[in-house]
């Protein structure tokens, strides 16, 4: 696919980095040559220096025959204009814009064909905040992502010693919970993926990935890990857009929230924007005196959400040491994330992976409804709709066991109308089923995409 990315900021760079492969021809436009040089040096893509909202620059970047535009410049206005120009002048088939402002998404007519011609919006701040919110709701989980409009969840959990499933085969999960649709799709031991989940005996300390009916998620997780004390008190370092969104949502749900911000002007803004019961603190997340004074040792969850990786890591380590029960840090650089996850920092959240999840469903071929990156972006799960019949599709009319999936990949669940099915080897897939496929290495995704594409004779 030919992809045009406007803006080589943090989002643009991580999008380019994630999508670059033999299957995608990527061109990045930015007005800062230094940022482009960095990309050019490290990845096999083309860069064009210039203002992405200028017609000549877009033409030079090959907008005429691009398949997808991702506008993620710093300003919403630029992104909107780029989408409009791309549609009107170059007839670029699909356009995605990164929008920061919460006001635009409420006006679909402004973004539609008569407006700015934006097919889909991505809002990194919103996706990260939603993602963090789910982690706070499931304090036992390392990662929670949702499929089928939230009806199916994929949850990563570290198995505790006292769990009923510990030292039993993963297939026994069905026996332990006969009325719950749940299945383990991957077992990670000591940072390495075990070759096949079927029949594997789970040991305490393993990280397992469970596909589960969302209604029963809490019960299923309890079989793997004793319930944590539910979260009441949350402290957030960093009052940027993510911190502010999250603080507002949490406060509205009745959590006790404290938010630390370095910039006094921003503090005042936060104090006007957030509900009264959120305590806004002026100070630094790495200031231990401040943390102690604000009773860090009583906090159920500490979230370091500044834009600085190093600051987030240091303040989280400090918070943990001072007694915060669970610490979550926003870490942009993948290398840092892998280094810190599971050490003193309980969960390292990669904002770019959360953004990618939102973007992936637009990039994946076939009828992909949702896609999420798992395990720091190494693995991926997609929800694809099976179309066609036995003759035109490689999936429909076949038994789950007969579908030629890449090595290690598996079908996690099927959603057929209102029913959630945990497929057995002999479950036959029907047209219209939403199939949730888990892929251990994201480089295998093209094979899965191909499976779900309907051959030409269907049309």
């Amino acid at each position, binding site marked *: 696919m030919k992809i045009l990315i406007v803006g080589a900021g943090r989002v643009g760079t991580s999008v380019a980095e994630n999508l670059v492969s*033999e299957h995608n*021809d990527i061109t990045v436009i930015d007005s800062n040559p230094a940022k482009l040089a960095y990309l*050019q040096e490290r*990845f*096999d*893509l*083309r*860069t064009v220096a210039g203002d992405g909202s200028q017609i000549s620059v877009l033409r030079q970047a*090959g907008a005429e025959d691009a398949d997808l535009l991702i506008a993620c410049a710093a300003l919403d206005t630029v992104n909107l204009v780029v989408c409009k120009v791309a549609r009107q002048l170059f007839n670029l088939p699909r356009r995605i814009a990164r929008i920061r402002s919460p006001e635009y998404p409420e006006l679909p007519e402004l973004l539609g064909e008569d407006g700015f011609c934006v097919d889909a919006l991505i809002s990194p701040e919103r996706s990260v905040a939603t993602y963090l919110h789910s982690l706070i709701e499931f304090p036992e989980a390392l990662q929670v992502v949702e499929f089928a409009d939230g009806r199916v969840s994929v949850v990563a959990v570290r198995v505790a010693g006292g769990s009923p499933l510990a030292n039993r085969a993963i297939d026994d999960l069905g026996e332990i919970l006969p009325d719950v649709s749940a299945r383990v799709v991957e077992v990670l031991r000591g940072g390495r993926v075990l070759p096949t989940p079927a029949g594997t005996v789970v040991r305490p300390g393993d990280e397992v990935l469970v596909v589960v009916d969302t209604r029963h998620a809490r019960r299923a997780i309890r079989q793997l890990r004793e319930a944590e004390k539910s979260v009441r008190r949350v402290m957030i370092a960093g009052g940027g857009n993510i911190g502010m969104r999250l603080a507002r949502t949490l406060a509205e749900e009745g959590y006790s929230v404290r938010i630390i911000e370095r910039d006094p002007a921003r503090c005042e803004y936060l104090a006007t924007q957030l509900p009264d019961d959120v305590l806004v603190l002026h100070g630094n997340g790495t200031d231990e005196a401040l943390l102690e004074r604000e009773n860090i040792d009583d906090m159920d969850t500490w979230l370091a959400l500044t834009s600085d990786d190093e600051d987030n890591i240091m303040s989280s380590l400090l918070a943990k040491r001072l007694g915060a029960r669970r610490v979550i840090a926003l870490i942009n650089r993948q290398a840092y994330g892998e280094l810190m996850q599971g050490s003193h920092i309980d969960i390292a959240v990669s904002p770019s992976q959360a953004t990618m999840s939102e973007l992936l469903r637009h990039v994946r071929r076939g009828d992909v409804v949702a896609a999420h990156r798992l395990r720091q972006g190494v693995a991926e799960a997609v929800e694809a709709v099976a179309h066609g019949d036995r003759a035109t599709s490689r999936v429909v009319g076949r038994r789950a066991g007969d579908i030629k999936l890449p090595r290690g990949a598996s079908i996690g669940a099927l959603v057929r109308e209102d029913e959630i099915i945990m497929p057995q080897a002999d479950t036959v897939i029907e047209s219209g089923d939403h199939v949730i496929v888990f892929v251990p290495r994201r480089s295998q995704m093209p094979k899965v995409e191909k499976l779900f594409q309907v051959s030409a004779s269907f049309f």
Partner: protein
Amino acid sequence: MRRFCAVLHMLGFTMALFASTMVFPLAVAIWGQDAALDAFIDGFLLALGIGLAMWLGTWRCRAELRSRDGFLLVSLVWLVLPALAAIPLLIYFQRAGMPLGLTDAYFETMSGLTTTGATVLSGLDALPASINMWRATMVWVGGMGILVLAVAVLPLLGVGGHQVFRAETPGPMKDEKLTPRIAGTAKALYAVYFGLSIACLLAYRVAGLDWFEAWCHMATTMGLGGFSTRDDGFVHFDSVPVEIVAMVFMLIAGINFATHFNALRSRSLRAYLRCPEAVPYLAIVLGVGLVVAGFLYYRQVYDTPLAALRYGLFNTISLATTTGYANTDYVQWPMFAPMVMLLLATFATSAGSTGGGIKMIRAIMLVKQARQEMVTILHPHAVAPVRVAGRIVPPRVLASVLAFMLVYGMSLALLTALMLLSGLPPVTAFTAVLATLNNTGPGLGPLGPLGNFSVLSDFQTWVCTFAMLIGRLEFFTVLVLFTPGFWRK
């Protein structure tokens, strides 16, 4: 060590890929059952075997290359491939009872691959067709670059591929990609090269050469190499249509192939006008050609203006584009003409073409830099950045162009001094270095178009071989290997 192993892996692949181009001479040898058939069968199997063994033997350490490995790979490829290419020549001449020294064989293949076109072989007309075919094939492959071909067919190289690509394609600004992925760019360039080659082949055939000679001359025209199948080159054919075909395609091959690609893609000649090099290149080469023709007529070397035009233009284009064909022995002309032609070769051809020298784009930047210097002397407050094709040339690029010129000048001086030291007369020494450093081919004196490099001693031959190598890879790729920092862990 692991990195080195990864470089060897890619080297093995490139060697195997290169060895497989021996199927062309092999096919000719089988077709004509000529005397070099055995040599090519043995040489082909040996070269392919070595390459495959190295490739498969290092399979475990295949990895993406870092930029430092890229330089090593490019230099190794260009050192090893001439040796590989020399295998059939050595075998053939050994068996034919007139052994060719290693020095001469390596010089000949290096001359082919770097598209220089200087030869140490004589009696070309009597050689088996397959040997001539092989010499021409080397020029064709070396013109666009064997590593560019490897990047096109082997996506594994990834970002490292970009480094390799940059190291092998000539010119100062190499970040302009035709397509987002480097493999796509390499494929696009080869597609254009291939298409133009076919056009050139057909044109030669129509102009009167037989298929074999048309093929060989097509390869050495498009590669701007200048090997011929005849000792006396174009003098032998003495045909105006053939010379016209040669002139047209030499001029075409001296333009940046990316510009050809853009012109084809947009189906308009505007791409040539927008290219900063194409117009000055054509204007200078044709202009100097006319001046030389006028000079020859004025000095009464030729009686008619038409004859002066024919010989003046053909030889000027041939030398300026670093090809090295000749349709007359221009060494007999008054010294001014051949010297101007040889000097023109130092800068006429474009970056991204198959020609050699310092390239037109660098020359343009230098001239503009000099002009800017004068402006700032007159107006100390003037803001006068150097612009090429409407865009400011980054100071980083200007600095690298100046450094390039320095190294070029130093190499020319030092290598000429070495040749003088070894006892050559000044004109021969200077033109030998100039002709090999620019990958032109013939020099002056005994090294003229109808002469031969076999008059040089072994030492002098090696100096010329080295000059061809650093000239083709534009100095820094090779010279960086001689810095201690490169090898420091």
